């Protein structure tokens, strides 16, 4: 289990940095990050299922200006790691455990937003340090200060991951025996609900004048086609 958590933390670190600090090639999106973490742990399908559920949830929350959206990267990675490791420990499989992991991870993901904000706040100190380094004509030091920002973002990602993992490891084994049966009645529908709620939020917040009309037309057309064929 320790090895799995460690491997998960490496994925969390790489994907967490892609989120803001470097590249932005979108390996931080849940549809990529969750399967990647799960692939490292040997069960990519678990990650894919979690990726599908989380990807659209906060897609409408744009990282515009100084806005910090919820940390869906760490939610999806930590959920995948929890689902795989606890699946082995509790000898459980199927959508119910995935859902329970997500139910715990999604609210805890709020901490990710605070850590991210804290990292950005901490980086303000680097501005003064760069200025004073430049006044001393020490360019190497100034460049180093900029790169130190990566440490803040790395720690922020790891802290979010650790909080979700810790919360999950403490809560899920206790809750699992009580909710396993109850979740089995509706787990498939709840798995469907996650992406649909995400799509509904995008629909409500996307700045397109005919969004609802286009969406309904597309939905009906696709549905009828599948029904008739």
């Amino acid at each position, binding site marked *: 289990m320790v090895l799995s958590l460690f491997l998960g933390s490496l994925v969390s670190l790489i994907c967490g940095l892609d989120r803001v*600090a*470097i590249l932005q*090639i979108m390996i931080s999106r849940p*549809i990529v990050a969750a*399967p*990647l973490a799960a692939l490292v742990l040997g069960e*990519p*399908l678990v990650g*894919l299922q979690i990726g*599908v559920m989380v*990807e*659209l949830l906060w*897609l409408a929350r*744009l990282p*515009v200006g100084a806005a910090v959206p*919820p940390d869906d990267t760490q939610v999806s990675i930590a959920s995948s790691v929890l689902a795989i490791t606890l699946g082995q420990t509790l000898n459980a499989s199927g959508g119910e455990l995935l859902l329970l992991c997500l139910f715990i991870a*999604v*609210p805890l993901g709020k901490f990710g937003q605070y850590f991210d904000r804290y990292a*950005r706040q901490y*980086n*303000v100190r*680097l501005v003064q340090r*760069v*200025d004073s380094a430049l006044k001393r004509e020490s*360019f190497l030091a*100034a*460049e180093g*200060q*900029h*790169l*130190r*920002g*990566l440490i803040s*973002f790395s720690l922020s990602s790891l802290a979010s991951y650790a909080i979700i993992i810790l919360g999950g490891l403490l809560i899920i084994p206790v809750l699992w025996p009580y909710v396993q049966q*109850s979740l089995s009645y509706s787990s*498939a529908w*709840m798995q469907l*609900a996650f*992406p*649909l*709620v995400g*799509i*509904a*939020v*995008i*629909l*409500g*917040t*996307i700045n*397109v004048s005919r969004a609802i009309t*286009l*969406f*309904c037309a*597309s*939905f*009906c057309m*696709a*549905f009828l086609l*599948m*029904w008739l064929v």
Partner: protein
Amino acid sequence: MCLLLYGLFIDVVGVEMKVSWQTRLHIWFRLLLLQASWNFETLQGLGFFYALLPGMRKLYSKEKLPEVSLKYTGYFNTHVYFAPLVAGAVLRLEEDRISGTAAEVEIDDFKQMVAAPYAAIGDAFFWGGLRPLAAGIALFLAVKGILWAPLVFVLLYNIVPIWFRTAFFSRGYRQGLKSVEFIQQHKLPDLAIHTKEAAVVVLGGLSAFMVFSQLTQHQVPSWLGMLTLIPMVMLGLVARKGFSTLLLVIITVSSIFLIGLFWADVVHLIAF
């Protein structure tokens, strides 16, 4: 890779360059770290200074460099994929200033003038349009359990940003101030709206596909799936009012959970 090389080199053919291609490549790579020290005071300011430093080193003497550099550590914020365009243009303007060709506006003013509009265009096009569109297409595959779906997403999404990051950097360097006209010609705000519309259409198809698959799998009459539109549109309208996604998820999932329990009891009673 071809896109990257083409974008970096082809646009500057025939243009007199003081900054060598090696230095420009160095700047380009540094722009990938633009947000490494993102902070609430100067936002991308330090990153912009860090990226341009190799170019400034070529253009200014050791004595002048600290003074010039300090100008670049202040506030700067634009969309991360548009930053190379601004960096390229600023580099050209710095070159012009040194060669004595007077620019129509101050470099600092130009930087601040274009940053905000570019950020708005980039946010609308990339975050608001392209990302949901690519995610919607990849999710079709993911729902089918195809493990290549994440790779499809990364490839689909990154084609345009790579183009922006490479070709626009060269374009900015080649055209300087006139790079603004280049952006205007491409009518990117219109393109952003069209991309968003395409995303909505894809997400509509994806919703229908997911609902239909679920109903078929559970042998529930398919026509019931059309009713999904009602709660989805209602949730969309509620989200528009400012309700948080987390709250909507909790309400929806709890409702489904309770209905599931109730339905299980009903089935249990009927069985007796």
